[in-house]
C-alpha cells in the first residue's frame, strides 16, 4: 500500500456510506460499528501512506509530491478538445490533513456511539458521517480544482444533512438551509474562479495552473480577479466575515457533528484550499493583503460576538470562526506552515472542546445554556479536566498546543511592516483567552446556577470520555512537533515548519520576546475573565453590560448581521421574485400570449357580422369585389 493508492482512504468510507444508508436499519446496532471500522481503516491506512510518503520524500531531489491521475473524459477533437483527468496529489499539506481528518473523525465516531445512542435515524447519522469523511479526504488529496469543487460541494451537502439531522425542529431545518445557501453563495465565486483559471490555462490541474501563473502565463488583473473569486469560496466555507452567519446556527446539529464539521475539518477546507493555492495568491498582487484583512476582521469581530453568548456551543462556534481568522492572517502573511500548524492544533483542541461540551450536554440532559450550568467539575471530572486542558490550549497558554501555533502566527504576522497586524491579532488573542475562561468558569466552576440540572448531571460513559482523553493528550502535546528534535524523533524530516513550507524549509527558533508577549496576552485575558466571573457571580458582568448597554446589545445581536441578511432576502430577493412572477403571469402570459389569441378571436367575431343573411348584401359583396378588383387592375395598368 503506497501513497499512490491513497484514494482508498476516501473510497472505503464512501462505500460504507452506501452500505449503511441502504441496509443500516436492518443491521444489528444499525451498523454503527461499520462506521467506526471504515474510518478506523482509513486512519490506519493513513499511516501507511505517511510511511510510504516519508520514504519517498526527498526535498533536495525535489521529490516532495506523489501525483497519480487517470483520464476521465474528453469532449470533441483537436487541440481545443476538452480533456479531463482525475487524480490525487499528495504532499506535506495533504499528509497533515490526512492525519488531522482521520484522527478527529475516528474520535468523533467513537464518541457518537455513546452520544447518539437511542436517537432516531441512528444509522443515517453514521452513514452521512462516512460520506462526509470520504469527501473531506477526497478534497484534500484532489490534484485538480474540478475534483476539489466536487468534493467541496459534497462536503457542503453532508453538512446540510447533518445540521438538519433533527429535521422535526424548524430551527434545525432553517439552520441547515442557511448553511447550505450561504456556503453556496461562496461556491458560486469558487466555480467562477475555477473556470476563469481554466479559461486562462486550459487545465484544472493545480500544479500546472500554478506553474503557468508563476511563469506569468496569466494576465495580472485577470489572475487577481479569478483568485479573488476562488477566495470567495474559501471565505464561504471557512465562515469568514461576512459569510460567518451560518456557523453559529449550524450548532443546531448533533454535537459530534459540530465537533467534526464545524471545528476540525469542513470549515478548514477554505484554509486548506487557500494554502494549497497560496503560490497563486503570491503571484497576484494584493490578494494576500485582502486575505489578511478578512482574517483580521473575522478574528476581532467574532471575538466580540463570542463575549455576549451564553450558549456553550455558540461560544465555541464563534471562537472557531475567530481561530480560522487567525489562520487566514497567517496565510495572508505568506506562511502556510503557520496556518496549517494552527489548523492541526486547533483541530485537536477545538474537537476536544466541542466533544467536551457534548459530554456536558449529554450529561445534563441537553442543557447547553451557561445560565443553567455551573460547578460541574465535581460532577464530571474527566470532562472537566479535559475541557480545562482544551480551554488553556485555546487560550494559548504555554506549553499547550495552542500556544505554539498561535505564537507561530503572531511571528508570521510580523512580515506585515508596521506591526498593525500583530497588534490587532494580539488584541484578538486577549479576547480569545477572555471568553474561553468565561466559558470554562461559568460551566465548570462556581456554584451551580440551576440546582435541578446540577443534581441530575453525571459523567458520561467510557465511549465518550475515552476520545476526550485522547484528544486532551493531543491538545496538550501536539504543539511540540514544531521542534526539530521532536519532528525527527517521530520520523519526519524535521520540525513542522521544516516539513510544511512554501519555498524553503526553516528550522524553528523560539523568539522569546514574542513568546513572552503571547503568554502575557493569554494571562491577561484569563485574569480579566476570572476577575469578572469568579465563582460564577454575574453582578460584575451585568454591571459591565449596563456600563455600555448599546455595545452590549450590539454584541448580543452579533452586529445585526442576520437581521441585515434576512432583510436583504425577504425584501430584495423575494420581492424581485414576486415582481418577476407577476410579470410572467400578467404581461408575458395574459397580455402577450392569451392577448394575441383573444385579438384573433375578436376579429373573427367582428367579421362574422358581415354575414348578414340578406341576399342583397351578399350581391353587394360580389359587386364590390368585382368593382374593387377591376379598379385595382386598371390602376396597376395605368
Amino acid at each position, binding site marked *: 500500500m503506497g501513497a499512490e493508492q491513497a484514494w482508498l482512504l476516501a473510497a472505503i468510507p464512501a462505500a460504507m456510506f452506501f452500505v449503511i444508508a441502504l441496509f443500516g436499519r436492518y443491521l444489528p446496532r444499525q451498523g454503527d460499528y461499520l462506521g467506526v471500522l471504515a474510518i478506523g481503516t482509513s486512519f490506519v491506512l493513513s499511516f501507511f501512506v505517511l510511511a510510504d510518503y516519508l520514504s519517498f520524500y526527498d526535498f533536495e531531489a525535489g521529490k516532495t509530491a506523489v501525483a497519480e491521475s487517470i483520464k476521465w473524459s*474528453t469532449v470533441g*477533437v*483537436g487541440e*481545443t478538445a476538452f480533456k479531463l483527468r482525475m487524480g490525487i496529489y499528495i504532499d506535506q499539506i495533504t499528509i497533515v490533513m490526512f492525519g488531522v481528518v482521520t484522527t478527529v473523525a475516528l474520535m468523533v465516531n467513537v464518541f457518537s456511539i455513546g452520544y447518539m445512542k437511542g436517537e432516531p435515524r441512528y444509522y443515517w447519522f453514521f452513514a452521512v458521517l462516512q460520506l462526509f469523511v470520504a469527501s473531506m479526504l477526497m478534497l484534500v488529496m484532489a490534484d485538480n480544482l474540478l475534483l476539489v469543487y466536487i468534493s467541496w460541494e459534497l462536503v457542503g451537502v453532508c453538512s446540510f444533512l447533518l445540521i438538519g439531522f433533527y429535521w422535526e425542529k424548524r430551527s434545525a431545518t432553517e439552520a441547515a438551509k442557511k448553511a447550505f445557501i450561504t456556503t453556496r453563495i461562496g461556491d458560486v465565486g469558487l*466555480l*467562477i474562479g475555477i473556470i476563469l483559471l481554466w479559461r486562462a490555462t486550459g487545465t484544472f490541474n493545480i500544479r500546472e495552473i500554478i506553474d503557468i501563473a508563476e511563469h506569468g502565463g496569466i494576465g495580472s488583473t485577470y489572475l487577481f480577479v479569478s483568485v479573488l473569486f476562488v477566495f470567495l469560496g474559501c471565505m464561504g466555507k471557512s465562515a469568514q466575515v461576512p459569510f460567518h452567519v451560518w456557523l453559529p446556527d449550524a450548532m443546531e446539529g448533533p454535537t459530534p457533528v459540530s465537533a467534526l464539521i464545524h471545528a476540525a475539518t469542513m470549515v478548514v477546507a477554505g484554509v486548506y484550499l487557500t494554502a494549497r493555492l497560496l503560490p497563486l495568491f503570491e503571484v497576484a498582487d494584493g490578494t494576500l493583503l485582502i486575505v489578511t484583512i478578512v482574517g483580521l476582521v473575522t478574528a476581532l469581530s467574532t471575538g466580540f460576538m463570542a463575549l455576549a453568548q451564553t450558549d456553550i456551543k455558540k461560544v465555541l462556534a464563534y471562537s472557531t470562526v475567530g481561530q480560522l481568522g487567525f489562520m487566514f492572517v497567517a496565510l495572508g502573511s505568506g506562511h502556510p506552515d503557520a496556518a496549517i500548524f494552527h489548523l492541526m492544533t486547533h483541530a485537536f483542541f477545538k474537537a476536544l472542546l466541542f466533544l467536551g461540551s457534548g459530554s456536558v450536554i449529554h450529561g445534563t440532559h441537553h442543557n447547553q445554556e451557561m445560565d443553567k450550568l455551573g460547578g460541574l467539575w465535581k460532577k464530571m471530572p474527566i470532562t472537566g479536566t479535559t475541557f480545562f486542558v482544551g480551554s488553556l490550549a485555546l487560550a494559548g497558554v504555554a506549553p499547550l498546543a495552542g500556544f505554539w501555533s498561535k505564537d507561530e502566527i503572531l511571528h508570521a504576522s510580523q512580515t506585515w511592516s508596521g506591526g498593525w497586524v500583530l497588534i490587532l491579532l494580539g488584541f484578538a488573542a486577549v479576547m480569545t483567552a477572555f471568553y474561553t475562561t468565561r466559558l470554562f468558569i461559568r460551566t465548570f466552576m462556581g456554584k451551580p446556577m440551576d440546582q435541578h440540572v446540577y443534581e441530575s448531571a453525571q459523567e458520561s460513559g467510557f465511549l465518550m470520555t475515552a476520545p476526550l482523553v485522547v484528544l486532551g493528550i493531543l491538545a496538550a502535546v501536539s504543539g511540540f512537533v514544531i521542534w526539530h528534535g521532536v519532528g525527527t524523533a517521530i520520523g519526519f524530516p524535521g520540525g513542522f515548519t521544516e516539513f510544511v513550507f512554501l519555498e524553503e524549509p526553516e528550522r524553528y527558533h523560539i523568539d522569546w520576546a514574542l513568546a513572552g508577549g503571547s503568554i502575557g496576552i493569554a494571562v491577561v485575558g484569563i485574569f480579566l475573565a476570572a476577575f469578572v466571573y469568579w465563582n460564577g457571580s454575574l453582578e460584575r458582568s451585568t454591571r459591565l453590560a449596563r456600563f455600555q448597554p448599546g455595545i452590549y446589545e450590539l454584541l448580543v445581536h452579533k452586529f445585526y448581521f442576520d437581521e441585515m441578511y434576512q432583510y436583504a432576502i425577504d425584501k430584495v430577493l423575494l420581492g424581485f421574485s414576486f415582481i418577476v412572477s407577476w410579470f410572467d403571469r400578467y404581461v408575458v402570459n395574459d397580455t402577450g*400570449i392569451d392577448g394575441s389569441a383573444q385579438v384573433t378571436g375578436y376579429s373573427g367575431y367582428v367579421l362574422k357580422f358581415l354575414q348578414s343573411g340578406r341576399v342583397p348584401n351578399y350581391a353587394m359583396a360580389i359587386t364590390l369585389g368585382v368593382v374593387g378588383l377591376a379598379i385595382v387592375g386598371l390602376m396597376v395598368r395605368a
Partner: protein
Amino acid sequence: MTFDEGQGYIVLATLAAPLLAALIILFIPSGQKMAIRFVSAFFAAVMLGLSIYIFVAYQADGEKIQMTLKWVWVENTAFLGKDGITLHLAVDGISAPMALLTGIVAFAGTITSWKLNYRPKDFFILYFTLLAGVYGTFFSFDLFFFFFFYELAVMPLYLLIGVWGSTRKEYGALKLTMMLVGGSVLIWIGIFAVFHEANLGTFDMQRLFAAGNDGTLSPTFQKVFFPMICIGCGVLAALWPFHTWSPDGHMAAPTAVSMVHAGVLMKLGAFGIIRLGIQLLPVGAEFWMPGLMVLGVIGALYGATAALTQRDFKLISGYSSVSHMGYVLMGLATMNQIGITGAVLQMFSHGVMTALVFLLIGALYDQAHTRDMKDFGGLTKVMPVWVVFYTVAGLANVGLPGLSGFTAEFHIFVGTFRAYPVFGALAIVAAALAAGYMLRMFAIVFFGPFNIRWKDLKDLTPLETMAGGLLIASIVLMGVWWAPFTDRIGQTVAAIPGVIG
C-alpha cells in the same frame, strides 16, 4: 428499403415498437384494463431495451451517422428528385443519448401510469403515439419526416392533458397545444423555404446540410430564416418569452404526460435547433447565436427567480424547467463543442431529473389532492423513500456534483465561459438561485413539524419505486461517470461544420 451495416432494423424496431403497441391496444377491448397495462409495460420494456442497445452499440469514434435505414417514400415527381422523400432513419452521437433518454423516461412513465384507471386504453394509445413521434424525430434524417414526427409528438398532447389532466386542464391543454403547433408552423415555413431555396428536389437532411455549408443556401437566406426556425423550435424548448405554456401545461398535465413532456418532448425543441438551426443553417446560426445566448440567460435567471416564490410543486418544476432549458439554449448558443455537448448533456440530465420530479409530485398529488407546499410539512415521517428520491432529484436540479445536473451544467458553464464569460457568470448565479428555491421547498415540505392531516399518506408503491430507481440510477451514472456520454456527443458535435473548438 436499404439497411446500412445491418443495424438499421434496430432503429426501425425502436420506432415501430410504440406504434405497434398503440395498434395492439387499439384492438384490446377497453374493459381489459390489466391486459392493456401489461401490453404497455411490455412494449415500454422493449423500447427501453432497444434504446439502451442503440446507445451502447453506437460507436463513438466510428462513422458519425450509424444504423442507417433508407426507405424511399415519394420520388421522381414534379418537384421531387430520385430520393425525394425518404424515410431515412439513423442515429448519430446526439440522437443516441436522446433515444436512451426516451427509453428510460417512457418506461418510467408507463409503469407509473399503472394505477391510471380512467380510460387507460385511450390513454396508452395516445401515449405511445406521442412516443413514436419522439423517437421518429430523433431518428429522422429527412426534413419531411422530421417535421412529420415532430407534429406527431405534439398532436396527442391536447387530449392527453385535456382528458386526464388536473388543474385548469382545458386552458393548459389548449394553450400548450396552440403554442407548440404555432411554433411548428414557423418550422414548417422554414422547411418550405429551405427546400425551395436549395432546389435539390430532396428533403434528405445530409444533402441539405451540405447545401447549407457550400453556400447553396445563401448567407442572406440563412440569416433571414434562422430566427424563424430557431423560435419555432424554441417554443417547444421553453425559449423565453415563449415559455408560458410550460408552467400552465405542466400544472395541468397528468403525471406520465408531465414526465414524458418535460422529460423528452421539451428536448425536441433544442434538438430541432441543433438539427435545423446549427446543422442546416450554420451561417445564420453563427450570425444569430448571441441573441439566442441573451434569451437563454434571461430564461435561466428568469425561471429561477420566478420559481423562488411559487407554492405549487408543479409551478416550481415548470419554472425550473424554463431555467434549465435556458441553460440548454445557452450551451447551444456558444457554438463551441464544449457548450453544445453540455447542452445535450443537460437535455439528458434535465430529462431524467424532471421526469423523476413529476413522478414524485404525481405520487403525492394522487393521495393528497393538493399541490400547495404550504399545506405540507415533515413529510419525511410518512414518506421517507419519497423524500429521499425527491432530495436526489432536487439536488441534481441544484447542480450538486456527483449527480447528472452538475455534469451538464459544468460543461455548459465551461463552454459559455470560453465564448462569453459574463453570461457564464450569470448562469452560475442562476444555479445558486436554484439552490434557493429547492432548499426552500425541502425545508417547507420535507422537514419541520409534521402536519397530522397527512398521517395516512402512503409511501411510493413498489412500481413507482422501481421507476424512480431507474431514473435515479441514470442521474447518478451520468453524474459520476459521464465519459460514455461526452464521447458520443462530443465526437458528433465536433464534426458539425461551423462549430468552433
